[in-house]
């Protein structure tokens, strides 16, 4: 990165924050601090909902997934449009009619205080556990590839987002998110355009797609019922729907976004905006990864995308072995490059047989490069057993820093920070609101004035910000970052969604039954997750946790309510006798 990149990066990020704070200055009462002015239009709500979900992890990890495994991950989002339709039609009008600040307030009105508290505590636990990831994930990747200090990157980005969220509240979060997501889209479209322009002369989008398809990177939909496959149409539709229903319908970081709408209409249209654009947006990001893969068929990729980790191992005893693997990788890549060019030329000439022969040779050469990559990871682990060898999160940022022009590099790094800020601000805003409304004002100080609550909300937001920064400073992640985030969400979401579905759809179930149903369902999911490595039957896709947690919560809620009803009936019968 040069001076121009830093100028673009700082100009974009600080400009958006300063504008957001200036536009929302002077918000003092609880309503405007937590819900904004109540005049947010559907477009802002739609972008705000999108920005809260699309963290920096989305823009670092998802292209890496596209590069490694193709675009099949898009199936994970198939349930989202259906979930958003249900939320717009059923959940939203109830939240609006009851004029709640948080989703858990509704549980208190429908059930009782302890169920409201359970919903709030599960949300705070889940978000608290994931709090550091959204700051840590981009910081570790950026600091590794740019040489910035990790702790300084975490502290600077974390402090900035905490400062403007505390100061401006919900309105500032919504407003800044709108411009941050704008920057994100501009950056991604620019990267896509540059990627296409950097392909060799004579190779267009059609050829690039054919090459990606030839390497099985465009297997978008898999209708098989194989439970061992992590992403299929069915797991995406059903598991993804439950995940999205929980996330968009019961997670305060999202509920708070659409409760800022000026009417049900604005909030609904904001949700519909996401129902329409969620799948194409994810597809676009995954496709970007698949096209980076095609790009590296013609350009030399590194044998391992986490260059500093490779260099560290090379300097600590594994140098000779790593350089030998790298030499084999380069030979295999040169062979692959020749075969891919022959494949494209034959395809363009309409010679199907020659194209198929060249494709088979390219796939064989690609298998050799993949073996070299696997050997590199094994060598890195041998050199340092604690080394994180998954380099897919480094693919896109390596491409950005190595192949984009200056200025655009700054813009793309701004994209990563914008996404970090947008999602973190939404989370912190929700954590502060829930702690204030559902814990402080509900339990600690029921007679607190609005002024006191705003003050406490600011303190709680700052406190959760400090927790997030603390987690980020001491975090260490082993798995793919986006999966880690989704796994944490899936462990907690099922039970909470069960609570809300009981509340909305099963009128006869009351507080105590719903409460214990959710507690037992949560315990079951935690047990399944803890035992998945030792009991093979429990080692299935995490997306199913949402379905199981929700189903068990509802079933137990009904059973317990039935038992309570029977006990009451027998007591009454006994008293009458």
């Amino acid at each position, binding site marked *: 990165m040069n001076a121009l990149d830093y100028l673009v990066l700082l100009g974009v990020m600080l400009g958006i924050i300063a504008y957001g704070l200036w536009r929302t200055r002077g918000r003092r009462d609880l309503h405007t601090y937590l819900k904004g002015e109540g005049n947010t239009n559907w477009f802002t709500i739609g972008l705000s909902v999108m920005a809260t979900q699309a963290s920096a992890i989305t823009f670092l990890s998802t292209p890496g997934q596209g590069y490694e495994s193709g675009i099949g991950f898009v199936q994970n989002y198939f349930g989202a449009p259906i979930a958003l339709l249900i939320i717009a039609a059923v959940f939203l009008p109830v939240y609006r009619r009851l004029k709640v600040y948080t989703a858990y307030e509704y549980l208190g009105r429908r059930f009782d205080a302890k169920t409201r508290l359970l919903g709030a505590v599960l949300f705070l636990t889940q978000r608290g556990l994931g709090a550091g990831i959204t700051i840590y994930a981009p910081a570790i990747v950026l600091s590794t590839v740019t040489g910035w200090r990790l702790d300084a990157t975490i502290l600077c980005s974390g402090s900035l987002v905490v400062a403007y969220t505390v100061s401006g509240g919900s309105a500032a979060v919504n407003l800044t998110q709108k411009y941050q997501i704008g920057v994100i889209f501009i950056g991604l479209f620019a990267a896509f355009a540059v990627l296409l322009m950097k392909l060799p002369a004579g190779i267009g989008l059609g050829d690039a797609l054919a090459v990606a398809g030839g390497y099985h990177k*465009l297997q978008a939909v898999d209708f098989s019922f194989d439970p061992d496959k992590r992403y299929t149409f069915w797991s995406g539709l059903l598991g993804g729907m439950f995940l999205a229903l929980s996330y968009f319908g019961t997670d305060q970081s999202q509920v708070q976004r659409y409760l800022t709408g000026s009417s049900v209409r604005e909030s609904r249209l904001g949700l519909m905006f996401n129902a329409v654009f969620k799948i194409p947006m994810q597809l676009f990001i995954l496709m970007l990864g698949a096209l980076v893969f095609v790009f590296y068929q013609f350009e030399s990729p590194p044998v391992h995308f986490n260059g500093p980790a490779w260099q560290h191992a090379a300097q600590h005893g594994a140098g000779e072995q790593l350089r030998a693997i790298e030499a084999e990788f380069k030979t295999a890549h040169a062979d692959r490059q020749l075969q891919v060019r022959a494949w494209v030329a034959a395809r363009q000439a309409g010679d199907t047989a020659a194209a198929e022969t060249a494709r088979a040779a390219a796939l064989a050469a690609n298998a050799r490069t993949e073996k070299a990559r696997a050997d590199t990871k094994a060598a890195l682990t041998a050199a340092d057993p604690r080394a994180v060898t998954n380099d897919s999160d480094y693919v896109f940022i390596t491409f950005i820093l190595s192949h984009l022009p200056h200025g655009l590099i700054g813009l793309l790094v701004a994209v990563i920070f914008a996404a970090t800020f947008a999602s973190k601000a939404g989370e912190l805003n929700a954590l502060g609101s829930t702690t204030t409304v559902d814990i402080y004002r509900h339990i600690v100080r029921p007679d607190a004035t609005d002024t006191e609550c705003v003050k406490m909300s600011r303190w709680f937001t700052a406190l959760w910000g400090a927790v997030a920064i603390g987690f980020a400073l001491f975090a260490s992640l082993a798995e793919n970052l986006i999966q880690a985030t989704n796994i944490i969400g899936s462990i907690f979401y099922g039970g909470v969604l069960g609570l809300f579905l009981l509340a909305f759809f099963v009128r006869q179930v009351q507080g105590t039954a719903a409460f214990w149903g959710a507690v037992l369902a949560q315990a079951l999911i935690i047990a399944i997750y803890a035992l998945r490595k030792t009991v093979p039957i429990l080692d299935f896709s995490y997306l199913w946790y949402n379905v199981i947690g929700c189903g068990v919560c509802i079933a137990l809620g009904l059973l317990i309510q039935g038992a309570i009803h029977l006990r009451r009936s027998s007591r009454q019968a006994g008293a009458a006798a």
Partner: protein
Amino acid sequence: MTSASPPPPPEPSADDSAAAQELGTGLPGIRSWRTVYALVFSIFVLWVALLSWLTVAYA
């Protein structure tokens, strides 16, 4: 033959206009939310169809 003139429509109250704003979609040509939901669902089905075609076409 005479026909009784229809009664004049009641004056809309502030409550009515607020309710109408909440209930109406405000979208040109689309009056009910059911139509909006059907449209959004159709777009979802189209995306799945497009992605299925992509999977088969580039297999």
